[in-house]
């Protein structure tokens, strides 16, 4: 499967350099899972990281450092302890890779639109899983800063095109759009500040939803 909408080179470099954290990092990681081209780009950017590491000066390690490492290795269970990933990571990955989205605790906002608020990141970004049923239209809106969306399942479209599974979309304050689901659609959405509705009922919606 190939995607049509990708993170920019800048976003992939930041990712490779470890300057993106939290759910935004997860978003790029998941995109790369289904987009071999972006994965290959990340691999190449990571080589810059490897070369940078190799050219660093040396800092003396503790005298018994190696012995400590060996003793920690030997005292650990063979069973690799489960990496305590960030919450939600596995659930979100399952939706993308296996289409599994049942048993989720959706909050239905309307008959055709539901969401799950994910823990807010310390940086003030807001992250949600959103579910819109086929045909659902999100009122026309812009963003006060940026909105990142990763399509996990299904598809949606706006004036600039259609976005399918794996597509990575970034809308900025300049983009006014009214997305509609072209099939039942689940997205991971991160906004760096609240949406601003701009249509006729915009002020009312802003008041209700924000």
């Amino acid at each position, binding site marked *: 499967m190939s995607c049509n909408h990708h993170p920019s080179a800048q976003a992939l470099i930041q990712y490779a350099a470890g300057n993106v954290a939290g759910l935004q990092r997860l978003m790029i990681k998941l995109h790369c899972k289904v987009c071999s081209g972006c994965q290959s780009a990340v691999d190449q950017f990571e080589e810059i990281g490897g070369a940078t590491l190799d050219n660093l000066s040396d800092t003396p390690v503790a005298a018994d450092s190696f012995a400590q490492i060996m003793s920690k290795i030997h005292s650990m269970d063979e069973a690799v302890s489960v990496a305590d990933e960030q919450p939600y990571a596995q659930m979100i990955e399952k939706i993308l890779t296996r289409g599994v989205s049942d048993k989720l605790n959706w909050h239905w906002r309307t008959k055709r639109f539901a969401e799950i608020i994910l823990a807010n990141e310390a940086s003030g970004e807001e992250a949600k899983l959103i579910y819109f049923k086929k045909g659902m239209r999100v009122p026309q809106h812009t963003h006060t800063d940026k909105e990142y969306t990763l399509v996990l399942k299904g598809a949606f479209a706006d004036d600039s095109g259609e976005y399918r599974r794996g597509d*990575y979309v970034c809308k900025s304050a300049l983009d006014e759009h009214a997305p509609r689901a072209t099939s039942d659609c689940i997205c991971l959405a991160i906004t760096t500040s609240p949406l601003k509705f701009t249509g006729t009922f915009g002020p009312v919606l802003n008041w209700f939803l924000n």
Partner: protein
Amino acid sequence: MSNVVAINHYRERNSTLKASPTAKPSQEQNDFWISCLIDVAKNGSQASFQKLFKHFAPKIKTFFLKHNLSLQEAEELMQETFISVWRYADYFEANKGQVSTWVYTIARNKKLDFFRKNSRQVATTEMASEDIAFETGDQYSEAMGEEMITFLPQLPPEQLEVIQKVYFEELSHQKAADALNITLGTVKGRIRSAINNLNKLMRGGQ
């Protein structure tokens, strides 16, 4: 005739890469690290593990110090990195390239884990808050072929160097300018060109 041109172009590229500070370790060196890793993975060899440790551990410690961690934190994370090197040695794909790159990704992930557990913010590179307008924004829309494109060698070395300084060494634009002995404007210009070039090269453009 066109072959000759291609070969010359290739040689030229190779020589500029060797001269750049982002130059990779030599093939033999990397092959040696790969053989050490294989020995660790297959035979649980402490001797080979120690060779990797001697070379990489002091650099990894520096890596963590550069990310504003204390000496003690840097030592702990370096040790954790090596525990992962031991554990996941058999996950290294020798055909995928550099051992230093693989070790780097482990250390980077340890840093991110540590920051998350301690609710520390990752340092956003100066880029994010700078007022440089990129034509392509944060997203790039175009169908991308399935085939892998090795594009990085096509980036002019002076642009690669700036990317390394600003994103991977996390220097401010001014410090990158000082380190490279060029003006602040040149740094900004090169970043902009590099990003624009990479956006094209990544998608198979020239």
